[in-house]
């Protein structure tokens, strides 16, 4: 069975380590915050200028001066700090964020990512995505393996305009956990109940499949 949104977030959360500073993109990546393993502490960075993002506020604690990069009202955790957007991206470009999680339209076997622009559709902009993918050492892309028409989103070469070049090394899709190196996709884990054949059939790029592909554990 393909992973649900919650399971995707759960699998990504397994990449967390105690003491990690983490930037989570909008959508499924945001859900990762709900699955931080017990006994582990992570600090969430929001690129508009906040380190130490907490949960959503109550009606009593909501503050229009306190939002995240998705423009949602949030709270802070103990030890949080505020800073300018320039300082925030200095932090990001400087390689200080331990894990960055974001979505994508397409990823290819060279590690290119397309996530911000579909020609012909209205273009809203890249926000901070280009800075994030160009800067982070450790990025996890989380997305569905194929689009609604069943077309693979793991390609030989991206067809859409890029967000970043050669920067993606890890993908958690609804079907598999895949790594990218040496210009190829490498199948590492499969979603529970998903066959290697299905993954192969839905991966357009070159996929290296080892003899043993364990199921993800939750």
């Amino acid at each position, binding site marked *: 069975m393909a992973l649900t949104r919650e399971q995707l977030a759960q699998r990504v959360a397994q990449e967390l380590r105690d003491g990690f500073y983490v930037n989570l993109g909008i959508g499924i990546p945001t859900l990762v915050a709900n699955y931080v393993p017990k006994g582990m502490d992570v600090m969430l960075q929001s690129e508009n200028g906040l380190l130490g993002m907490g949960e959503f506020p109550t009606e009593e604690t909501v503050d229009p001066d306190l939002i995240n990069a998705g*423009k949602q009202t949030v709270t802070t955790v103990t030890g949080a700090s505020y800073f300018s957007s320039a300082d925030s991206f200095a932090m990001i470009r400087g390689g200080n964020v331990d894990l960055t999680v974001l979505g994508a339209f397409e990823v290819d076997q060279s590690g290119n990512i397309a996530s911000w622009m579909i020609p012909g559709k209205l273009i*809203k902009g890249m926000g901070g995505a280009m800075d994030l993918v160009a800067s982070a050492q450790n990025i996890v892309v989380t997305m569905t393996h194929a689009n609604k028409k069943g077309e693979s989103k793991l390609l030989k070469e991206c067809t859409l305009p890029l967000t970043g070049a050669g920067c993606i090394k890890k993908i958690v899709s609804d079907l598999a956990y895949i790594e990218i190196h040496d210009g190829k996709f490498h199948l590492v884990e499969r979603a529970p109940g998903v066959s290697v054949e299905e993954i192969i059939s839905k991966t357009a790029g070159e996929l290296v499949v080892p003899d043993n592909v364990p199921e993800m554990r939750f």
Partner: protein
Amino acid sequence: MSGFNKVVANYDEALDGLTNDMTLIVGGFGLCGIPEGLIAKIKDLGVHGLTCVSNNAGVDGFGLGLLLEDKQIRKMIASYVGENALFEQQLLSGELEVELTPQGTLAEKMRAGGAGIPAFFTPAGYGTPIAEGKEAREFNGKMHILEESITGEFALVKAWKADTMGNLVYRKTAMNFNPMAATAGKITIAEVEEIVEAGELDPNHIHTPGIYVNRVIKGTFEKRIEQLTLKK
């Protein structure tokens, strides 16, 4: 401290000298930390042909969205736009030009503009449409592109507190682009929630020193929330 009293009495005085076709650097992220009253006044003044440099372009009827109603903005330099219908219309009709810039690059362009750094290399956007026409160069085994800084005739910023000498303190994530915007304007106007006497702000914790601020006006703020999200 007569020579350093930056407080102005009203919005007319605050925006004195603003004319058509100027470039404005505007602080704020979404609707958070935007100089609400200054923007509303620019709508009243009716100046047009403006280039606005701001991370976002407001929403219908609020923030920079107000300036779209009478087509006062000719060009937006932003990282994320299109949260309103008017914006889309004017973009598609060609009445509005947009220069999309990665958010970190935009922040750094403002900071560099204010800091006398005319250009810098950044990895953001290499290999993407953003890099087209820009010089690319390898440093430390990684490709970067050369980005030029941005300055404007006016900078419009929103701060929490100002003292009469123009020293500013921002609050929480309403800081965002405001500190860099404050440095990148030839004339910088700060619209603030509270004006205090010089000496009342802790010198150790002033976010924007008064040297950058030409005019201070006390505003009243609606602080509209774009994405109210509450704990379930």
